[in-house]
């Protein structure tokens, strides 16, 4: 793909009580524009999932464009539930690759904490099947729990077998100033945490947070003249599965992850071993487990083994670094902004400006943004832009 990231910015994931959705988005957008060294872009694409139910606010493209003073700009929202950020980035790739747009600003934003408790839980179920899941009082956490329980049953596992994923996420999040929960997890705490939907506990489930992240993308040739270390988007692939778990032949096989991942590898003409780090959609440890299996890094039923020894294999200096800035678990889960946080974090990694979160010699990063229980999956592969590109 002939598209590169030349600017990246993010604000900490927090409970930003004093800021509205437009202020959050604009703050991240200004950081990305400043990073790119430009003041204007041709188009603005917004990744947001829950503006309608969290904030009673749609048409965010126009709203945020106006907040940024970009009067007249092409601007609209891209929505695919929690994968909204990912599809917004892909939309920018379409626009720039086609030549219709020279430069695009992609902002992922979510303002979750305007509502709390059952109201927020209910507002999040809008991305599930309203007629057959949500009406039965089913939530995303419940679906993750159903998958995890069955997985534990079939593979004869205990809760502790998954703790390494959360320990690793918090180890990395603890040194990320933008992470929401910068605490480390003590050994054994995972299995003792209060249940939200057993076997999914508080320390298994990513916390809702307010956040915004942004990137500026342009054609790769242009990027090389704009900034010293552009990051190329060398693959972009979206796949969907049968929407509900109940309609799949095997609810423990996330087919859309497989399809999206191998589609991305094929586009980039890369192999599985060429990826140096992974920002997976670790909203629940079972999601990471099944993603690693669907991508072929482990056989079916063995994804949890990568969490062993407190996640040594998936740490910053391990073989498969995952959630390098804390992932959704520790950095926080800002809904439709997640996919752009992943893009910003990977951009910092590939520029070797990730500070304490740096993965040594990171050349290629995979970012994967998922909605529902693997219902929509967006995979991008980012790389240090080669000099000749």
């Amino acid at each position: 793909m002939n598209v590169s990231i030349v600017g990246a910015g993010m604000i900490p994931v927090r409970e930003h009580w004093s800021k509205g959705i437009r202020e959050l988005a604009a703050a991240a957008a200004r950081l990305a524009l400043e990073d790119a060294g430009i003041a204007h872009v041709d188009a603005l694409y917004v990744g947001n999932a829950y503006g309608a139910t969290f904030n009673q606010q749609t048409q965010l493209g126009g709203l945020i464009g106006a907040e940024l003073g970009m009067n007249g700009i092409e601007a609209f929202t891209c929505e695919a539930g929690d994968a909204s950020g990912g599809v917004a980035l892909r939309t920018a790739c379409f626009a720039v690759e086609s030549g219709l747009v020279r430069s695009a600003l992609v902002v992922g934003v979510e303002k979750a904490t305007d509502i709390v408790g059952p109201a927020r839980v209910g507002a999040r179920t809008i991305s599930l099947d309203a007629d057959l899941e949500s009406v039965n009082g089913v939530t995303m956490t419940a679906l993750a729990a159903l998958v995890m329980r069955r997985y534990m049953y079939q593979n004869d596992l205990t809760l502790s077998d998954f703790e390494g994923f959360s320990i690793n996420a918090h180890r990395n999040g603890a040194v990320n100033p933008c992470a929401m929960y910068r605490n480390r997890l003590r050994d054994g705490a995972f299995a003792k945490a209060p249940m939200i939907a057993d076997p999914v506990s508080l320390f298994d489930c990513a916390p809702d947070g307010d956040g915004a992240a942004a990137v500026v993308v342009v054609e790769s040739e242009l990027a090389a003249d704009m900034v010293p270390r552009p990051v190329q988007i060398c693959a972009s692939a979206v796949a969907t599965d049968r929407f509900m778990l109940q309609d799949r032949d095997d609810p423990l096989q996330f087919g859309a992850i497989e399809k999206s991942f191998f589609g991305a590898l094929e586009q980039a003409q890369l192999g599985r071993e060429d990826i140096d780090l992974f920002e997976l959609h670790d909203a629940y440890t079972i999601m990471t487990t099944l993603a690693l299996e669907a991508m072929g890094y482990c056989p079916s039923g063995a994804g949890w083994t990568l969490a062993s020894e407190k996640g040594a294999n998936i740490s910053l200096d391990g073989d498969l670094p995952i959630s390098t800035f804390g992932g959704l678990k520790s950095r926080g889960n800002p809904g439709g902004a997640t996919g752009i946080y992943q893009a910003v974090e990977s951009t910092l990694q590939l520029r070797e400006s990730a500070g304490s979160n740096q993965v040594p010699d990171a050349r290629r990063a995979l970012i994967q943004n998922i909605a529902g229980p693997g219902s929509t999956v967006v995979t991008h592969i980012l790389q240090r832009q080669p000099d000749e590109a």
Partner: protein
Amino acid sequence: MLDQESQDSETLYSRAKGYQSAMVGTVYSYTLLQEPPLGYESQAPYYVALVELDDGGLVTAQLTDIDGSVQIGDRVEMVTRKLTTDGSQGMIVYGYKFRPAL
């Protein structure tokens, strides 16, 4: 229009219309949900399950009338129950839940 109708007749939904399931099955997986969405607070915590029907297919539903614990493989049957109410004056939403097979 005719073409469109003949295409619709091929959908899974249309083919399933009129088919009467046995409405009994086994628990394929389950969870006890502690954080309910708006409109379901009074029932929480409640069980949510994937039920594997005897004549095929999985259904996502709440378990009800549970006295004691639930295990994967438990026999359950479908019953009609109130799911939620749209406020104190609002419409009652009825649907299906599963209870231990009698």
